[in-house]
């Protein structure tokens, strides 16, 4: 579903991604872990076609970036730690706007479905500005899956949420993944990642240092695995 070959990203002279290879099968839920500044956000932004690779091949859902960006965008949903929502619009209006931008037909049903899914149907007519960070983040996820994308990217979806919000978010994330979608999520929260993901890739020194399936580590837990990967 996602295949990245020899990806290099440079900011000025600083090389962030050094020939990174990354492959995801349809339906996988990949947790992209790594220390601060490893380049996780940078990598996701490239996958999202928000930032251009300096070198290398990026191929998502059978389309090459950056040339076929439009097709990729149509099949991609992105959730970053910013909500990408307009505070002066209601939840419904926000979704309607994005529905228009994605050219979705029979919008009303779709919007209602999504609001149901993220549990905000009751608040659909309230201003997003009045929402708590948690509700905003849930709505942001609704926004990201509105056009029923095959691939969803999450960049630290838990940042700035309070605790209950984070727990609600878990369920939403699960239901997003449940639909057989391909998910890539960065997070610092090993505990959460361990619950959610089916695969754990560790980005370190600009490449994927190690990759492991959940079933791979028995006995040991994610933290040990993570530390080993970094020492290696």
């Amino acid at each position, binding site marked *: 579903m996602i295949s990245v070959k020899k990806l290099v990203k440079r900011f000025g002279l600083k090389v962030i991604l050094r020939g990174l290879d990354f492959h995801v099968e349809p339906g996988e839920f990949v947790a992209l872990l790594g220390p601060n500044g490893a380049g996780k956000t940078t990598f996701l932004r490239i996958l999202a076609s928000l930032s251009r690779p300096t070198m290398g091949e990026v191929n998502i859902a059978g389309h090459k970036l950056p040339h076929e960006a439009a097709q990729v965008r149509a099949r*991609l949903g*992105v959730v970053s730690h910013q909500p990408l929502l307009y505070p002066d619009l209601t939840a419904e209006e926000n979704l309607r706007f994005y529905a228009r931008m994605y050219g979705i037909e029979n919008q009303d049903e779709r919007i209602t479905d999504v609001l149901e899914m993220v549990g905000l149907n009751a608040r659909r007519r309230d*201003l997003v500005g009045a929402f708590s960070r948690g509700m905003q983040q849930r709505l942001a996820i609704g926004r990201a899956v509105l056009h029923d994308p095959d691939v969803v990217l999450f960049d630290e979806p838990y940042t700035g949420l309070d605790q209950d919000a984070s727990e609600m978010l878990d369920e939403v994330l699960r239901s997003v993944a449940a639909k057989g979608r391909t998910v890539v999520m960065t997070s610092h929260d090993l505990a959460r990642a361990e619950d959610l993901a089916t695969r754990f890739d560790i980005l370190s020194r600009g490449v994927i240092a190690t990759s492991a399936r959940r079933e791979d580590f028995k006995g040991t837990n994610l933290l040990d695995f993570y530390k080993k990967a970094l020492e290696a």
Partner: protein
Amino acid sequence: MRPSPSLFKATLAIVKKDLSAEFRSRELISAMLVFSLLVILIFNFALELDVKVRQSVTAGVLWTTFAFAGTLGLNRSMAVEKDRGCMDGLLLAPVDRSAIYFGKAISNLIFMLIVEAIVLPVYSMLYNVNLFQAGLLGVILLGSIGYTAVGTLLSAMAVQTRTRDVLLPILLFPVAVPVLLSSVKASGGLLAGAALPEILTPLNILIVYDIVFIAIAFMVFDYVVEE
């Protein structure tokens, strides 16, 4: 797979979005309005002119007011997109980038026109001059189009800089001098009771400027927003 929406549809969506958001908060328009009134007020103190001279500078005062209030609106309207990453949201949509430009430009234009539509009657009450002449309104429309066409492009750049809160006017005013100048000329002429033919030159300049700068902005906007 689903066809991505047409340029026109996407532009419309953005305009609608901006309008309904503004209709809620009224943040932008009220800011522009209050600022315009303040500018007029300051001018009134600054230039205590006898009625005759006052008449002769009406056009100038009006356009200066519009110019200043305009930068305020342009800046804010783009900052809204930048602040909570909404610009990324727009860029993620499978639409042509120029839809974003046209969308923002059109809503900026609408905001500016609304403000002008309120400032004009107020001004004509304050100084009892009659500003409601078809010609004048036409000139104001042309001028505003040119101003927002460039302003939207430049504001998209300005908000991405470290000095976002001060940069826009510095970028915009020099580039917009032709618009302002010929708008003042044309409006002044009309207010002095000139007939259309007499102010043809400034009008033509305005039209040319509008076309040229919309075209340029249309071509370069991609480079401004992409990373």
